């Protein structure tokens, strides 16, 4: 195992908008390479959403965290293949639910043309508060690019749903 030190540091770099998730839980760290003398590290990140304001903050936070342990830190951005919610770790999904955000269900959309006019963004299996499966969408867009707003028909509580993407 190489670059263990870097991976350990990255496990503590949080998503600025959903702080229960680390960048590793998000699945945006595509590669970590350490130089032979362990003084330099290169991290490759894939952004979650095109316009997500957290992206630049994450790059900054990754750089800052690694600078404490390495002389030289390089952060590369790789667009392709595009990030998908399938890359969220299992631990990340559990953390999301504990935080009151229902993790994406169903697969990400297929690579081909989505069926239109309506595509399937998945649906939360159950209310994160009371567990009722009776839930309905309030709005397809929420407080951050990754979320939609839903509510529970039984307990009436609104909640965030992390959209399948």
């Amino acid at each position: 195992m190489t670059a263990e030190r870097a991976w350990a540091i990255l496990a503590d770099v949080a998503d600025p908008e959903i702080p229960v998730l680390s960048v590793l839980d998000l699945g945006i760290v595509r590669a970590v390479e350490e130089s032979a003398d362990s003084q330099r590290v290169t991290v490759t990140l894939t952004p979650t959403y095109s316009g997500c304001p957290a992206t630049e903050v994450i790059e900054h936070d990754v750089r800052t965290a690694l600078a404490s342990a390495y002389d030289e830190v390089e952060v590369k951005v790789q667009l392709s293949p595009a990030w998908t919610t399938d890359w969220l770790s299992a631990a990340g999904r559990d953390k999301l639910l504990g935080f009151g955000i229902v993790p994406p269900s169903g697969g990400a959309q297929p690579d081909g043309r989505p069926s239109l006019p309506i595509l399937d963004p998945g649906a939360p299996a159950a209310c994160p508060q009371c567990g009722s499966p009776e839930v309905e969408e309030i709005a397809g867009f929420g407080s951050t690019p990754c979320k939609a707003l839903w509510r529970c028909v039984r307990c009436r509580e609104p909640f965030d749903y992390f959209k399948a993407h």
Partner: protein
Amino acid sequence: MSPTSDAASPAATAPFPSIEVVADGCLIASHRLSEWVSSAPTMEEDVALGNIALDLLGQARGLLSHLGDEDQLAYFRDATEFRNPTICELPNGDFGHTVLRALFVDAWLERVWHVWLADADDVVRGVAEKAVKENAYHRRHSSAWVIRLGDGTDESHRRMLAALDQLWPYVAEIAVEGWAADVATVLVESTLPVPSLPKTEVEWGSRGQHTAYLAELLSESQSLTREFPGAKW
């Protein structure tokens, strides 16, 4: 061209756009949507339109920074140097006008991103891989609203007809191969008429020919950066 060959020619489809046209189209469409923030009909729509504007801005940035210095391109070009389709720059009308325009632009971008999924250029392909999924959400939103308002009350139907009337001449620039059929599906479900494509030969925006609305939009979007070049915040 003889009247016979003219009659036999298929409805005009718009040429497939260049990277410049799409980059500027996303940027200008984003700006118009952002004008709704804090004044949309409901709080959920405020959030939705803001989110969509942000996605479009991100897509524009991905392409603009591939073409050059994104800030230079966004803030220091004049209207005649922009290549966006003119439909993107038209002022926001009522909410119905906004969601109908959004549907037209989303359907255009959908065709573009799908073609670019196989582009040889890594950056273009990378932007498209991300954008194709974001755009599907936008398209879902605009389609749902067009259907709800078109097939809604007499008042909402009347307003959607008016919006269709105002916007349709401008689709000549964005009606790429397949666009008309995609849009017709939604219009039919909305109980709105499906006009035939405008037959005029156009190249307006891609040649830098714009309505006066673009200069007005830029005077707002560029003013801060031009007044304080190099400002950081």
